[in-house]
């Protein structure tokens, strides 16, 4: 095997591998172009202002209205409920595992939390609709069968491991020296944790929280199964609503043909979803980088 032939093969292999890596760029471009093409077509028929600021979403009905705010409010309502569970509980879990728990406990608990994160979302949807909702209905009279509270709570549990594990990483990233200094001054664990470690880890923890919000916004099956299909602009968690993701699924179940306005609405909503999660992920990454810089 001559030297130059060998070298040519090496270069060929490198190009092939580069192509594999570059495929990811193609995917991103693909997502953006697919969404953008249909969304631009959509905006030719519906004004962006009406879309982004309108408060009535009846794109398929007699009196067509394309205001996306009801879907956004549905998404936000469920996400807020989810974060109000996952945020405090996740952070407390992280604090416990990082500062208080003995190694034995950590070894047992961490895999179990990973299991929580690995359960398919359709299973959580089943749980929300058939266990949590009836349970809540016994406690809250007038709770609809489809509502925002039940999937919100269940989603909170689903995201909890993500918040907890990322926050724990952030807490552990704080140098031990800071803690020891505090103990040397006579502080209790709680004082150390809350006044020294937590503030130091703040950007890492915020990054975790924002990533969790992004996950909550993009979640589909739990809300499709349990939250309902009635787009409405409300802050009431006890009635049925519809999220952006559930709308996309609803229309897709009917498999609307290409080229119709209805088909384009799912791409317009999808674009909004993509942009929001993308921005959130960007902020989260920036925060995490900043945290790493502080303590690297």
């Amino acid at each position, binding site marked *: 095997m001559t030297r130059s032939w060998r070298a040519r093969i090496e270069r060929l292999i490198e190009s092939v591998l580069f192509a594999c890596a570059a495929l990811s760029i193609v995917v991103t471009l693909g997502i953006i172009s697919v969404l953008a093409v249909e969304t631009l077509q959509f905006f030719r028929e519906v004004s962006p202002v009406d879309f982004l600021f309108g408060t009535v979403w*009846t794109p*398929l009905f007699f009196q067509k209205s394309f205001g996306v705010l009801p879907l956004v409010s549905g998404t936000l309502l469920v996400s807020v409920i989810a974060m109000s569970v996952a945020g405090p509980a996740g952070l407390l879990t992280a604090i416990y595992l990082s500062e208080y728990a003995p190694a034995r406990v950590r070894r047992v608990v961490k895999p179990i939390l990973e299991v929580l994160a690995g359960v398919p979302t359709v299973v959580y949807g089943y749980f929300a609709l058939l266990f949590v909702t009836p349970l809540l209905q016994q406690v809250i009279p007038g709770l*609809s069968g*489809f509502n925002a509270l039940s999937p919100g709570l269940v989603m909170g549990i689903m995201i909890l491991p993500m918040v907890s594990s990322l926050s724990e990483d952030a807490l552990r990233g704080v140098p031990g020296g800071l803690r020891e200094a505090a103990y040397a001054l006579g502080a209790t664990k709680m004082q150390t944790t809350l006044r020294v470690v937590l503030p130091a880890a703040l950007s890492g923890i915020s990054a975790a929280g924002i990533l969790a919000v992004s996950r909550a916004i993009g979640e589909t099956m739990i809300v499709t199964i349990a939250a309902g299909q*009635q787009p409405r602009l409300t802050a009431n968690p006890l009635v049925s609503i519809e999220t952006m993701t559930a709308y996309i699924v609803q229309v897709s179940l009917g*498999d609307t*043909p290409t080229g119709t306005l209805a088909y384009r609405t799912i791409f317009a909503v999808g674009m909004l979803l993509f942009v929001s999660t993308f921005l959130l992920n960007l902020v989260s990454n920036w925060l995490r980088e900043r945290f790493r810089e502080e303590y690297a």
Partner: protein
Amino acid sequence: MNKEDRASSLPFISRPPGALFVLVLFAGLWACGGSGGEGAMSVITVDGSSTVFPIAEAVAEEYQLANPGTRVTVGVSGTGGGFKKFCAGEIDISDASRPIKDVEVAACAEAGIEFIELPIAYDGISVVTHPSNDWVGTLTPADLKRIWEPAAQGEITRWNQVKPGWPDQELRLFGPGVDSGTFDYFTQVIVGNEGASRGDFTSSEDDNVLVQGVSTDELAMGFFGYAYYEENQDRLNLVAIDDEDDANGAGAIEPSPDTVRDGTYQPLSRPVYIYVNPSALDRPEVAGFVGYFLNEGASLVREVGYVPLTDQEYALVEQRVEDRVTGTMYGHGNEMASLSSLLTGAGH
């Protein structure tokens, strides 16, 4: 240990070619075990109305059991959705809970797709509430119009706005979506204008979602095909409709196979149809399926909860298949005409 030894000390399965080979082999085994290796019969594609779905599903299941190797898929895109696909040539058979519309006829003509219109059963659209709902006794079409018309959007949002004596509670509505033939028919006969409806209710082309919604909410009301009520009687309350026309049954009538058949449940009784692509009938499995639909289908229609056509009507429908009669029987305002008159009159 030189490099060859090291590489081969790992088991076969964890080297890339080995793992992939096993995966593909696995898939192959599944494939052979699954369909029994029968090849060439094409898939019979059915899609459309959620109302007709229980019938189509039952027929598909029994047909496949009676004819192993045949394959039928049934979708639930709604009557409108089904027609869109049918006129795009994407499916063989379209389920419909209303006759084909003019614009759909035009779309099919433009695409060069013909259709054979086949009524297959009668349905009585059922209005339902939650079992614990004790204030709604009976309703008239005027009541229903008040609740569902476009003007009600944002205005009629509580029960006591429908009738003063009713509770001051939120009115939670569930109904089929805009692609649904049931939606089209209901708005046509109740509101007076096809497709004219309020937009602020839970709408879904999947009637199961509506059943779930109404059965778990004390303040809910909804409407859908009778089969869905029948299958869920223990969790739904049926509302009798008084069409204020003593000529066909005095007082409020509840939908049931009897009242639908003898025409006393009005105005919400209607035929439901399948539309078949004549070129698909050239495939023996499709022809067999349609034949099965019209013969054994009658008992399945009854089993599912709808009302079969009379034997005469089925015979006339089968004749349409044999003669490959294309085009719709409807138009020129004869929407409410009886099937017998349409089937004999339309002839060729």
